[in-house]
C-alpha cells in the first residue's frame, strides 16, 4: 500500500531516505506517514479493541502511548518518549533481535520494512506528534488564490493538482483532442457515445464556451440520470430478486425510476439521503418519498422453510448497518458487529445503536407462514407472493407503453374490419353474423352476456348442488365435510349447459356470495378459493367432450394472482380469487380463439377443480360457493374499454350504413382477432400494463423491535444490553432529535447530512472523483477509516467536500466543477517516462483510460447500431440469455423468457437482475450481483469478456443492425461512417487497409456459403430487410462485429 502513495521521500527513493542527512529535512506527518504503518501492523493488538489487546497498551491514543505502562512481567516502560527514540519502548521493540521481544511478533502477518522503521524513528525524533484521523476531522476549505494574471490556475481542482505536479517538476499532459474529449464527456455523463452529428457540431464550434455548453447539454440529458444511477444502484444493492434460497422476485423498479429522476432533477443530495432512509417519516410524505423509502427494503430476504425468524431479522439489521455506513460514511462500521472495531473507534455498541434506527422497518424474518415459524399476516403467501409492504403507484413508462399497445391493437382490428368490407364475401359474412347475434345482445340493458342455466351438475366429495332461479348453482358441503376436509382429494365440479345457436366467442363465469354462506363467495366462509377451470363441448352423440382451447382468460374484477412475485393477469393457469372481495361477486371471462356454435343437444361443459390445500394455508383457503355462467358472441374487452355491445350499432346491416364498419370490426374482433398469436400477444401485453399501475416495496414504520447488543454477533445470545438508536459515539453521539424520545430514521438521515458530519460529503465526493478519474482521491472509496488510504490530495478532497455542502449538496454543480477542470480534460495517453515515478498515475499528470462498465458496453453497441430504445425507467427488461441458465432455481421453478419486442433493446441498467444468477453478459464484465453494497467494481480482462462480445446474440444483432445502416452509403464511405459512430473518429490509413482486406476475405468466404450468410444475418429479433443482399450484409456485419470487439470501443480514453 505504501508504494502507491505519493510521499516526497518515496519519490526520492529509499536509499536516499535512509541517509541521515536527507531524512533530517523530512517532516513526518502522522496521518500521511506514520498512522498507516501503525494501523496496519500494531493497532490490531494495541488499538481500540480492548478484547484483542492482552497487554492493555494502546498506540492509537497519544495519552496512552506516552504514559508509563506496566507490562505483564511488571516492567514499567514508556512506549513513546517524544524526541527520544532510544528511550522509547516502541523503538526498542522494533529493533529487538530477541524473538520474544521484537515487535511485530515474528509470526505476525504484517512485518515492517526498514523504511517503515526509519519513518517511525524520525517521527519520534521529531516529537511523536499525533493528528486526529484526517477523515474524522472537519474538512477545511482552503482559499484558492485569485490567479487572474498570475501563473497558478484559477480552477480549484487544477490549483491543487498542478501544485503537486509542480512540486515534483512534472508537466501536465496536453489537453485531449476534441474528438476524444466529446467522447469522454458523453460517455462519462450519459453512458452513451456522441452521435456523428454531435461530434461534427462540437468540432465546428470554436467558441471558448463550446465545451462548457456541451457539459451543460449533457447534464440536461435525461440519460445523465441513467448514467449516475448505475453506481448508486450498486451501492444500495438494487436488484429484482430476494437473493436468498428461492430468489423470488421483488417489485421495486419504481425505486430505480426514483433514483434516475432524482439525478436528472438534481435533487440535493441531502434530500436524496433523507428520502431514501426516511421518506415515509417525512411530514406529509409524497408518493415519491414513499417510493424512495423502498431503499430500506432492498436487503436480501428469505422465505425458506426452516429458516429462523430471529436469525434472519438479525441478518437484515446488520446488512442495513453495513450498507448505510458504507454508502454515506465510507466507514467499516460492519466490523463492529462481533467486537469493537480493530482500527477505528467504533464500538460494538455503536453497531447495534445504529441498527436500532431501523428496528421499526416492517419486514418479516421469514417471508412465509410455516407452522414452525408462524407469520400470521402471511398465511396465504406462497412462493409466488410478492414481499409486502407494498404500495400501488402509477408508472409513466407503463402508461405510455399501454397507450402505444392499445393503439396498435385498435389499428390491427380496424385493418381487419376494413379488409372484410373490401371483400364482398367478407361483407356478407358480417351481415349474416350481425343478423344472427343482434337479437341476443341488444337487450335493453345492453348487457352482452347471455345467462345459460345449468343443465346438469355433478360434484365429488359428496358436495351438494342446488340450482337457483337466476340460473346459478349453489354448492353445499355434506354435513361432515369441514371436519376432515383437508384429508380429502380436491373437489371437482362438472357442469353442463345448453346455449343459443349462435357463434360463442366468450364465456363468463361468475362466483357469487350467498346468504347461505354467510355472504362469502366461498361455501366455508373463508377468504378465497383457488381453482382450475376447463371448458369443453359435448357434442350430441359423441362419447367424450372436446376440450376448448383458450386464447386468453382474465378476471373482470381485481384478483391477485402471482407468479414469482409478479401479478399475473391471465387466468389460464387457474384462478386464485380476491381476498379483498371475499364477500363480493367475482367473475372471470374466457376468450376462445375461434368461436364455437352449439347445435341442439350439444352441451357446453365447465369443469372446476379446487386446487389442493396447502397445509400452511388451510385457514384461509376455501371452496367455491355459488356460480353462474353466461356466454356472448362478442369478444372480451380490455380493462378500461367499453364493452363491445355498446359500440355495436343495432341494425347496421348494409355496407352503406354509417355504422357498418364498426360492425365489421366487432365481427372481426369476435371471430378472427384472437386466432392470431401476434395479436393475442399484444392483447396480453396490454393486460400486463395494468393501465399503468404497478406495485413497489416501501418502508412502513411499526413499533420498533427491541435491539440488543449481540455478543460475538450471536443472534441467540440475549445477554447483551438493550440499546437505543444513536450514531457512533465518537462522531458526535446523540443527534438533535426531532421527536423527543427514541431516535428515528429521520433523525439518523438528518444527522448523516448535517454539516458537522465530517464523513458524508468526503465519502460522496471521493466516489464521484473515482467515477471521473478511475481512482478516488483516497483510493479505498469503501473505507475512509484508519485502514483506508491517506488521500493523494487531501486538501483538494476537503475543498470539494466543503464546496459540495456549501452548494446545497448540488450534485450537478459538483460534476460540472470536475469535468470543466483542465485536469479532467487532459489527454489520457500513457506517459511511459512517468511510470517509475507514478505507476498508478495518482498525481494525474494525464487522464486515465477506463474500461466501460458492463451496462454501458451493452448501451454502446445498441446505441451506435440504432437499436437502443431511449425511454426512461420502467420494469426490468429481459435481453437474450443463454438457455438453461436458471435451471438451478427453484421455489418456484423458473424459465427465462427473453423480451419479444423492443424492450429487448433497453439500456443495460434496466436488465433484469436475478441476484443468484446475474445475466452472464453483466457478470462477465464485472457487474456486481448486488447482494452486498458495492462501492467499487472489479475491472477484469478475461476470455469470458472476449466470448461475450464475439458471440452474445445482442452484440451480433447490433453489428448486423449497424451494417444494415451502412448499406445506405457508398462502399467507400461505409468505413468512415462505422468508425464515426462506434469510435467517434475516422479510421487511420492502416486501419482502413487492414479492414478492407478483412472485409474482402469475409466476403469471399460468405460468397462460398450464402446459407451461412443468411443464418449469420438472421440472428436476433430484428427482422431481416429483404432489400439487402445477405452475402454483402454478412461481410459488413463481420466488419462492424470487429469494431464492437475492439478494446478502444469498450474503453473511455
Amino acid at each position, binding site marked *: 500500500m505504501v508504494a502507491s502513495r505519493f510521499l516526497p521521500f518515496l519519490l526520492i527513493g529509499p536509499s536516499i531516505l535512509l541517509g541521515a542527512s536527507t531524512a533530517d529535512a523530512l517532516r513526518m506527518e502522522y496521518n500521511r506517514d506514520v498512522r498507516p504503518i501503525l494501523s496496519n501492523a500494531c493497532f490490531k493488538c494495541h488499538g481500540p479493541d480492548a478484547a484483542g489487546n492482552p497487554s492493555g497498551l494502546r498506540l492509537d491514543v497519544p495519552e496512552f502511548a506516552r504514559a508509563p505502562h506496566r507490562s505483564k512481567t511488571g516492567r514499567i516502560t514508556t512506549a513513546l518518549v517524544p524526541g527520544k527514540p532510544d528511550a522509547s519502548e516502541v523503538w526498542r521493540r522494533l529493533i529487538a533481535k530477541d524473538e520474544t521481544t521484537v515487535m511485530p511478533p515474528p509470526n505476525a*502477518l504484517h512485518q515492517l520494512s526498514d523504511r517503515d522503521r526509519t519513518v517511525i524513528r524520525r517521527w519520534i525524533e521529531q516529537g511523536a506528534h499525533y493528528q486526529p484521523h484526517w477523515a474524522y476531522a472537519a474538512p477545511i476549505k482552503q482559499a484558492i488564490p485569485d490567479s487572474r494574471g498570475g501563473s497558478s490556475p484559477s480552477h480549484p481542482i487544477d490549483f491543487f493538482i498542478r501544485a503537486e505536479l509542480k512540486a515534483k517538476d512534472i508537466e501536465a499532459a496536453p489537453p485531449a483532442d476534441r474528438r476524444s474529449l466529446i467522447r469522454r464527456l458523453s460517455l462519462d455523463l450519459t453512458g452513451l457515445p456522441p452521435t456523428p452529428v454531435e461530434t461534427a457540431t462540437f468540432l465546428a464550434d470554436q467558441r471558448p464556451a463550446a465545451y462548457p455548453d456541451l457539459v451543460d447539454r449533457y447534464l440536461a440529458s435525461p440519460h445523465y440520470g441513467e448514467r449516475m444511477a448505475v453506481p448508486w444502484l450498486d451501492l444500495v444493492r438494487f436488484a429484482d430478486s430476494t437473493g436468498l434460497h428461492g430468489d423470488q422476485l421483488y417489485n421495486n423498479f419504481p425505486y430505480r425510476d426514483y433514483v434516475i429522476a432524482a439525478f436528472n432533477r438534481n435533487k440535493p443530495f441531502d434530500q436524496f439521503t433523507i428520502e431514501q432512509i426516511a421518506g415515509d417519516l417525512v411530514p406529509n410524505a409524497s408518493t415519491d418519498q414513499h417510493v424512495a423509502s423502498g431503499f430500506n427494503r432492498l436487503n436480501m430476504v428469505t422465505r425458506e422453510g426452516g429458516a429462523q425468524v430471529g436469525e434472519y431479522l438479525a441478518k437484515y439489521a446488520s446488512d442495513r448497518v453495513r450498507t448505510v455506513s458504507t454508502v454515506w460514511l465510507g466507514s467499516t462500521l460492519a*466490523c463492529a458487529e462481533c467486537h469493537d472495531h480493530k482500527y477505528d473507534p467504533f464500538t460494538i455498541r455503536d453497531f447495534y445503536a445504529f441498527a436500532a434506527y431501523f428496528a421499526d422497518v416492517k419486514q418479516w424474518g421469514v417471508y412465509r407462514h410455516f407452522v414452525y415459524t408462524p407469520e400470521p399476516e402471511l398465511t396465504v403467501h406462497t412462493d409466488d407472493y410478492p414481499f409486502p409492504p407494498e404500495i400501488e403507484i402509477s408508472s409513466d413508462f407503463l402508461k405510455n407503453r399501454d397507450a402505444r399497445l392499445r393503439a396498435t391493437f385498435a389499428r390491427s382490428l380496424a385493418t381487419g374490419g376494413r379488409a372484410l368490407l373490401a371483400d364482398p364475401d367478407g361483407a356478407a359474412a358480417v351481415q349474416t353474423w350481425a343478423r344472427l347475434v343482434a337479437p341476443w345482445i341488444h337487450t335493453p340493458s345492453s348487457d352482452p352476456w347471455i345467462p345459460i342455466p345449468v343443465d346438469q351438475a355433478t360434484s365429488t366429495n359428496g358436495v351438494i348442488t342446488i340450482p337457483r332461479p337466476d340460473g346459478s348453482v349453489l354448492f353445499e358441503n355434506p354435513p361432515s365435510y369441514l371436519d376432515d376436509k383437508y384429508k380429502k382429494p380436491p373437489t371437482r365440479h362438472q357442469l353442463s349447459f345448453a346455449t343459443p345457436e349462435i357463434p360463442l366467442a366468450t364465456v363468463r363465469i361468475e362466483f357469487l356470495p350467498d346468504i347461505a354462506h354467510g355472504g362469502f363467495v366461498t361455501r366455508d366462509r373463508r377468504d378465497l378459493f383457488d381453482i382450475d377451470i376447463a371448458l369443453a363441448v359435448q357434442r350430441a352423440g359423441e362419447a367424450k367432450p372436446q376440450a376448448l382451447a383458450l386464447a386468453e382468460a382474465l378476471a373482470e374484477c381485481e384478483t391477485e394472482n402471482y407468479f414469482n412475485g409478479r401479478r399475473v393477469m391471465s387466468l389460464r393457469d387457474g384462478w386464485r380469487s380476491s381476498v379483498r372481495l371475499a364477500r363480493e361477486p367475482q367473475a372471470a371471462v374466457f376468450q376462445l380463439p375461434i368461436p364455437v356454435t352449439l347445435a341442439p343437444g350439444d352441451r357446453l361443459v365447465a369443469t372446476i377443480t379446487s386446487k389442493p390445500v396447502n397445509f400452511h394455508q388451510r385457514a384461509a383457503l376455501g371452496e367455491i360457493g355459488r356460480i353462474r355462467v353466461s356466454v356472448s358472441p362478442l369478444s372480451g374487452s380490455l380493462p378500461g374499454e367499453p364493452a363491445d355491445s355498446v359500440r355495436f350499432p343495432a341494425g347496421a346491416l348494409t355496407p352503406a350504413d354509417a355504422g357498418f364498419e364498426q360492425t365489421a370490426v366487432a365481427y372481426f374482433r369476435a371471430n378472427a382477432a384472437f386466432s392470431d398469436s401476434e395479436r393475442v400477444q399484444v392483447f396480453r401485453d396490454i393486460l400486463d400494463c395494468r393501465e399503468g399501475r404497478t406495485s413497489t416495496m416501501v418502508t412502513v414504520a411499526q413499533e420498533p423491535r427491541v435491539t440488543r447488543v449481540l455478543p460475538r454477533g450471536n443472534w441467540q445470545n440475549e445477554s447483551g444490553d438493550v440499546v437505543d438508536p444513536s450514531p457512533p459515539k465518537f462522531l458526535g453521539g446523540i443527534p438533535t432529535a426531532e421527536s423527543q424520545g427514541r431516535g428515528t430514521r429521520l433523525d439518523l438521515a438528518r444527522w448523516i447530512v448535517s454539516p458537522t458530519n465530517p464523513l458524508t460529503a468526503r465519502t460522496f465526493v471521493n466516489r464521484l472523483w473515482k467515477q471521473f478519474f478511475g481512482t478516488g482521491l483516497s483510493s479505498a472509496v469503501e473505507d475512509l477509516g484508519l485502514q483506508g488510504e491517506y488521500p493523494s490530495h487531501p486538501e483538494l478532497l476537503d475543498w470539494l467536500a466543503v464546496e459540495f455542502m456549501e452548494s446545497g449538496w448540488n450534485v450537478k454543480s459538483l460534476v460540472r466543477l470536475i469535468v470543466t477542470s483542465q485536469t479532467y480534460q487532459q489527454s489520457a495517453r500513457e506517459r511511459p517516462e512517468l511510470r517509475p515515478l507514478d505507476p498508478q498515475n495518482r498525481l494525474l499528470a494525464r487522464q486515465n483510460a477506463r474500461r466501460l462498465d458492463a451496462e454501458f458496453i451493452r448501451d454502446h453497441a445498441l446505441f451506435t447500431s440504432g437499436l437502443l430504445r431511449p425511454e426512461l425507467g420502467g420494469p426490468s427488461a429481459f435481453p437474450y440469455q443463454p438457455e438453461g441458465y436458471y435451471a438451478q432455481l427453484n421455489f418456484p421453478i423458473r424459465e427465462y423468457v427473453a423480451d419479444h419486442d423492443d424492450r429487448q433493446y433497453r439500456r443495460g441498467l434496466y436488465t433484469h437482475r436475478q441476484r443468484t444468477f446475474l445475466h452472464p453478459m453483466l457478470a462477465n464484465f464485472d457487474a456486481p450481483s448486488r447482494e452486498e453494497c458495492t462501492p467499487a467494481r472489479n475491472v477484469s480482462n478475461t476470455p469470458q469478456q472476449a466470448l461475450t462480445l464475439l458471440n452474445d446474440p445482442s452484440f451480433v444483432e447490433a453489428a448486423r443492425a449497424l451494417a444494415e445502416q451502412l448499406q445506405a452509403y457508398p462502399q467507400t464511405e461505409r468505413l468512415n461512417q462505422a468508425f464515426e459512430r462506434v469510435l467517434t473518429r475516422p479510421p487511420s490509413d492502416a486501419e482502413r487497409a487492414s479492414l478492407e482486406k478483412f472485409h474482402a476475405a469475409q466476403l469471399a468466404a460468405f460468397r462460398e456459403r450464402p446459407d451461412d450468410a443468411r443464418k449469420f444475418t438472421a440472428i436476433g429479433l430484428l427482422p431481416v430487410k429483404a432489400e439487402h443482399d445477405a452475402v454483402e450484409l454478412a461481410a459488413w456485419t463481420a466488419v462492424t462485429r*470487429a469494431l464492437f470487439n475492439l*478494446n478502444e470501443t469498450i474503453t473511455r480514453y
Partner: protein
Amino acid sequence: MIDPLHHVRQRQVAWSRRTFLGQSAQAIGALALGSLLNPRLLASAGPSTDGKWRGVLRSPHFLPRAKRIIQLSMAGGPSHLETFDPKPRLNALHGQPFPESFTKGQQLAQLQHERDGLRARGSPFAFTRCGLSGQMICDLLPHTQTIADDICIVRSMHTEQINHDPAHAFMNAGSITKGRPSFGSWTLYGLGAEADNLPGYIVLMSNGPGNDQPISARQWSAGFLPSQFQGVQFQSKGTPVHYLGNPDGICQSMQRQLIDELAVLNGLSAEKTLDSEVQTRIAQYELAFKMQSSVPELADLSKEPQSTLDLYGIKNPGDGSFASNCLLARRLVERGVRFVQLYHRGWDHHSNIDANLPAACKLVDQASAALVKDLKRRGLLDDTLVIWGGEFGRTPMGQGSGRDHHINAFSIWMAGGGIRPGITWGSTDELGYRYLDDGQQMHVHDLHATLLAAFGIDHERLTYRYQGRDFRLTDVHGKIARGILR
C-alpha cells in the same frame, strides 16, 4: 539412505518451477513478486501475456501434496446416520423419546415445533466393515465400500448454518456474508491456473429425481477477489460455457480471421494510446479462441472407451448426469483445471427417507467410487484431492418419515492429494447427535485450513486486503488436522 528430506526438496523445486517460474514472470512485475501478498497490485497487474492466471504465492508455505481438487458436493445434506456413521444405540432407541439432555437449548430448523415430541429415528440399513482398513460404510453404498482403503472418512464434521443456502455459503466461503470468495476462488488466487485453454475453476451440476433445493451462482463467486478467479459453471444445456459457440453461420476459420484482425487493430490503437491494457486484451482473445476449440473436444465423452463408461455407470455420455459429470471432472483435471466442483442436488430428505435415501445413494455411489479408481489407475490420485459430502447432516430425531437439517454432526470422505487413506477421523456421540471434542473434531474452518494445507498453503497467510482488513478463507479460525495429512 539418502537425505530423508531429499524428495521433499525435489518436489518443492519441481512445484515452483512448473507452477510459477515456467510462466513468464515478467508480466506480473517485480513489484508484485517482491511483495508476497499485495492484492491491489496483483489485481492491476492482470494476467500474464501467455493468458494464464498466475497466483499470488511464489512458493508454497508447506510441502504441497495436492494440485487439484474435485469436490463432489452432495447438496441437500446427506444423512450421516445412513452413510458413514452407524449408531446401534440410536437404532435401539428407535421410536422412543429422544433424550432431552442432547437437544436442550439447541438450534433446530423445522423440528422446533415438535420440540415436545422429539423421537429417535434409527437407521434401517446395515453397515459393513470394508477393506483392509475395516472402515464402516453403509450397504447403500456398495461401490464406495470397494474404495474403503483409498478414502479417509471424517465423522466429526460440524457447521454453523442450518439452512441450505447459508450452509453452502459457509462450506464454500467460510462465511455467510455475501461477497466473500469461495474456496475455489481462494485456491486459484493463491496458486493460479495450470491450464491455458480452460478456466481454472469449473462447476458442474446434476440433479436428483425430486424437487431439489436451489443452488445459487454465488457459491462459486470470487466475491471481493478479482473476477477472473470466479468459478465458471459448465451448462448441461446448450454450449458448456456461455457464449462459447460461434454465431450461426460463422465457422472456426472465419472466427480465426476475426481474432487475427482484432489483434492487428488493437495493436494499431495501442501504438496511439500506449495503453498497456491492450496487450492483455489481445491475449484474452487468443485464450477465448483456444477455449472455443478445446472445450467441445473436452466435453465430448463419446470417445471414452466403453470400459470407462461402464466403470462410471454412464448410460448416455454427456447427459448431464452425476456419472457423466464425474467423468468430465476427470477429463478437466487431466487438462490442468485446478478446482472442479460437482453439485448434485437431491439429498434433502425431510420425508420418506427410507425410500429416497437409497435412491439418492444409487445415483452417486458408482460414479463417485469410479472417479477415485479412475484417477488412481491414471496416477492422478496422488496429487488430486477428491472430497465427497454435503453442507450439513441430518437429525438423529425423526421428522415424520424423514430427518431434518443438522449442524452438529455430519460425515464426509476425502481421497488422494495427500490425505491419509483408509482411516476414519473423528467421531460423534452414541446417538450421532454431536461431534466429540476428542482432538479430531472438524469444523468447516478446520476443513478449509486442512485442505489448503494439502495444497501447501498456510491458511493464515493466504490473505486479501479488502475494506482495510486482511481477509482469509478461515476468517480468524481454523486448525489444520495434521493427522489426516500424509
